[in-house]
């Protein structure tokens, strides 16, 4: 079981190494990196290449660790008891399985994606220590121990909005996805748009990497923006000549690359300045 990237996903050597280490040693893999470098996509592609199920657990600021295990719906049980419903005596009717439970009960080791773990409360990772370590937990309401049939492959992504506790980090492997260099980038584009014209691609890449170098951008365009932008360029049949024409300074369809108002303004200012120079 070796992961080597897929048809739609270019994985660098380092990333392959990290993923394979995590699979072999059965550790959760924590992935960080600039937004748009394909952290979430990794889990999807990994599941596909291993031919196994992907279970996604997207974390929000209100997500609690125990929601991943199970939830006991006391409120509806109280209501049901008032109404004299059937089955109210059996507490297990009011226990809802969480994503982790789901992942534990699969027949084949699934890929479990815990997406954007940094969005949750500070205590969230700490509450999952034992579960990730031993791959088991205890349901107090039914006095039942849930043990994973197969250890799921766990991919955790973080955008660094919060520090993760040391005890949690110790249990994970860690990989930081660097922003791809030009070579890798070309491979990535090739994977998404195999028929893109060579010259257009070259010009587009130059524009893109130049744009990343513009100082002061709030959000530098990343891989996913590049892919979107190329899609637009292709759809509009922009020819390489237009891109090469540096007079305008603002690349065509820049809306796909630059996502906020200040950045657009900055680019327009720069464009104005360069026109004046010329």
């Amino acid at each position, binding site marked *: 079981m070796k992961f080597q990237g897929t048809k739609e996903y270019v994985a660098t050597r380092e990333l392959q190494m990290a993923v394979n*280490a995590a699979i072999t040693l059965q550790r959760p893999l*924590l992935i960080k990196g600039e937004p748009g470098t394909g952290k979430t996509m990794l889990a999807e592609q990994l599941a596909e290449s291993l031919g196994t199920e992907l279970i996604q657990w997207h974390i929000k600021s209100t997500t609690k660790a125990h929601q991943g295990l199970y939830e006991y719906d006391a*409120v509806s049980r*109280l209501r049901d008891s008032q109404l004299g419903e059937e089955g109210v005596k059996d507490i297990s009717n009011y226990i809802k399985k969480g994503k982790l439970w789901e992942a534990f009960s699969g027949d084949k080791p699934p890929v479990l994606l815990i997406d954007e773990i940094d969005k949750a409360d*500070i205590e969230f990772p700490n509450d999952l220590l034992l579960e990730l370590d031993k791959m088991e937990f205890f349901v107090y309401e039914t006095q039942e121990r849930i043990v994973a049939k197969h250890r799921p492959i766990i991919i955790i992504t973080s955008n660094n909005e919060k520090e993760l506790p040391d005890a949690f980090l110790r249990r994970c492997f860690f990989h930081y996805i660097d922003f791809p260099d030009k070579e890798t980038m070309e491979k990535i584009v090739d994977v998404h748009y195999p028929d893109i014209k060579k010259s257009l691609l070259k010009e587009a890449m130059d524009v893109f990497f130049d744009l990343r170098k513009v100082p*002061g951008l709030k959000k530098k365009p990343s891989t996913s923006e590049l892919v979107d932008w190329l899609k637009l360029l292709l759809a509009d049949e922009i020819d390489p000549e237009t891109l090469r024409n540096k007079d305008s300074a603002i690349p065509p369809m820049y809306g796909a690359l630059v996502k906020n108002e200040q950045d657009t303004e900055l680019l327009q200012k720069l464009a104005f300045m360069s026109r004046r120079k010329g």
Partner: protein
Amino acid sequence: MLIDFFQTMRQYRVPCSIREYLDLVGALKQNLAFADMEDFYQISRICLVKDERHFDKFDKAFSHFFEGIDSLDDLLANAKSIPEDWMKSEFERMFSKEELAEIESQGGFDELMKKFRERMEEQEKRHRGGNRMIGTGGTSPFGADGYNPEGIRVQQGRSRHKKAIKVWEQRNYRNLDDDIELGIRNIKVALRRLRKFARQGAAEELDLDDTISSTASNAGFLDIKMVPERHNAVKVLLFFDIGGTMDPFVRVCEELFSAARTEFKHMEPYYFHNCMYESVWKDNRRKSNERTSTWDLMRKFTKDYKVIYIGDAMMAPYEVTHVGGSVEHWNDEPGAIWLQRMKDTFDKMVWLNPVPESQWGWSNSLNTIKEIMDDKMYPLTINGLEDAMRYLSK
């Protein structure tokens, strides 16, 4: 196995524990990296380092550890002129007992040295111009006889190895290192005072007590009561004075910064120089082109953000009071006005000063700022911090 490597990492304060070390050994046992320096670099980083902030330290430690191999090169280059005893002791230092025993068993140290010399002379003729002699074609005395457990890996996959060397010598992650762990414990404890739990947002938790009492008063008919959950609701804006007179205090400030990062739900750090003017910045290396307008800050953050300045407030008086007083740029409005605006915008604001309180009287600018701050200036000591936090959490 690799214990020295692990110790080197610890020396460079890469926060790794025995658990991580065992992971690494386990990974190697599974043949995830074999006889390849770059793979070893990757796998050890995956296992030992858990945050990109520590990559830089790891790189340093890694190159330090494997520098032994470079110095071995030098050793070889100078082998002819170095006294044998010295070399012998040097090698004994490098090899473990078992390895030395093995060397003995294969003809002893002298035999090895002889081989070295022969090879040396041979190589001297073949490559001139200070090429790395060890490892060419995997036939160096070390490689051939397998004496150096770490050295061995270097010799194979030469081009890749070179690339890897570049990876850790580039030190790409220097910018991410903000860690100062020593002595921050006290600061953390003081800052914790500021934590304030509040029930805010949507009602999500079942309030059992209230449900019982309201059900009882509802003649036994179920009446469910919910409450919002408790959150740490403190939001903080931090401003660091950086550069110039603050340089001796930068360490203290960094400690505070690294302590604060983990303590609050919302915390935004910014930098300024000497006094606050129309803009601040987030990354000191790029301060000339990535600035944030102070107006923007005032609009962006709500007034319940607690504002904390950290600075020595020691400067020429005109830097606070005059138009164009700033030493770095032309300011259209004096710093005092900006401080005043901040005070009007935010409810609570304090200034922490690393200069000992006993010296405060000597500086005009300090007293001007203290006045603007309504005397809410505290020394950067544990007590001062606690006082400041007490005021902020009032």
